[in-house]
């Protein structure tokens, strides 16, 4: 029979030679390997990342917890057009649109805004199609990990968990992600 892969090997159950049956050469060889690792770790340290104190930077392609951005003046960018919900293959996004009232110009950038904006994090597959669909640069996937929870209801993230804060310290930096998306768009065009 012709082998389907080049990985197949014929098993040989040959008798061990006297040298092999002594076990000792193999034992000492193995002990040499572990000792080498022992001293390497001792003198050069290990590659362990001490997690809570020391965190690895995420790659720009990492897609985690979404953020709804505000503009420079602190107004919500989202205009509740619903393109993200349409683009979403998992149908995780829902929203209720509302009209901006006079006097709310400092809160919402456009005349229409999302009164309710919910993402079901259990449905979300973190594909990033919502940020590609968004014409207002309002939604981005960030390098924050969605935390675990015991209750399904708590995975439906509303605006309180999605919209970034107004203060400069509460803003969420998406410049790396934006740069990556631009490069990707250029590469595909």
């Amino acid at each position, binding site marked *: 029979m012709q082998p389907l892969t080049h990985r197949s090997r014929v098993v040989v159950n040959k008798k061990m030679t006297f040298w092999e049956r002594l076990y000792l050469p193999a*034992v000492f060889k*193995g*002990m040499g*390997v*572990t*000792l080498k*690792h*022992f001293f*390497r*770790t*001792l003198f050069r340290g*290990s*590659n*362990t990342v*001490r997690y809570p104190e020391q965190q690895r930077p995420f790659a720009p392609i990492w897609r985690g917890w979404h953020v709804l951005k505000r503009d420079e003046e602190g107004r919500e960018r989202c205009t509740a057009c619903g393109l993200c919900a349409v683009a979403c293959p998992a149908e995780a996004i829902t929203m209720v649109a509302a009209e901006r009232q006079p006097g709310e110009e400092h809160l919402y950038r456009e005349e229409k805004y999302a009164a309710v904006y919910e993402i079901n994090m259990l449905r979300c597959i973190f594909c990033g199609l919502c940020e590609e669909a968004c014409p207002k640069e309002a939604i981005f996937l960030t390098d924050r990990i969605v935390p675990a929870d015991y209750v399904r209801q708590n995975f439906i993230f509303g605006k309180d968990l999605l919209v970034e804060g107004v203060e400069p310290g509460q803003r969420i930096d998406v410049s790396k992600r934006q740069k990556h998306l631009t490069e990707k768009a250029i590469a595909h065009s």
Partner: protein
Amino acid sequence: MLLLFATSLLIEKAILVLVLFAITLGIAAYATLGERKVAAAMQDRLGPDRTGPFGILQPIADGVKFFMKEDFMPNSAERWLYILAPGAFMFVACMTSAVIPWGTELTLFGRPIALQVADLDIGILYILSFTSLGVYGVMVGGWASNNKYSLYSAIRASAQMISYELAMGLALIAVVMVSGTLSLREMAEQQAGLNWNVWYQPLGFFIFFICALAECNRAPFDMAECETELIGGYHTEYSSMKLGFFLFAEYINMFIACAVIATVYFGGYNFPGVDPSWLGGLMGPIVMFAKTFFFIFVFMWIRWTLPRFRYDQLMHLGWKSLVPLALVNMLLTGIGILLFDK
């Protein structure tokens, strides 16, 4: 006068026993940390480092954990044997260190104090007999748990220990032939400088070392704790500090086995260029402990290198290789003594 002497001797020995007990427990506790650190380094990891600097409080945290855990006993267990087994195992493990000479003499308050709890004429026989008693802890524990895996494990462990004791005893006989004494103190004194028994008994040392690994239930001979086949081995049904006792006693056994290897084959408290009476007699114990720690490291090194032997391979090795080898070693030693000594 005689009464005063006897009382002071008694107090002296009692203090020595207490100190030795504390040191043994301390070393066994820190051997668990050492084991994890060595394992980590050999696998390019860090090991425990959250409890105190470099994780030095880890053994204490482990001990507290063992005490706080629920002490569960299976309904169908043999109640008294179940409780007795870990205690017996621990007791036997602690007893063995009594005949090991840790140094020559320590001068305290103008009195010379021998650094050995009991200088028995038959020190080696004492050690052999107590290591063979150790199997009772395992056997009784496995039996009393009323669990088939525990029982399998106990049977394996006892078969293994009995088989390897044979080769161990035969290897020791060759040492006794060379040194002409059964007392560990005399044996250590004979090995002054670099006149160590291992140069006369390389094969015997090798056999003894393998048997010591098997006697301590250490990898690659940790048949009794074969997780994949026997869940956890003879202590499957044990929890809380009873389990802690079993695990702890194994580390004490390892420490004692390493001390015996150092005493019998590697000159005990002797080292060339170092007089054991330096520092008021403290140099002896320092050298002795350095050797012991080295062998503990070798034990760990082996554990984190070699996979476990299969049960039949283990028995083959014990009966078909080590016992004949030990007999040949005895024969060669006899010939050597006839040719060179007289």
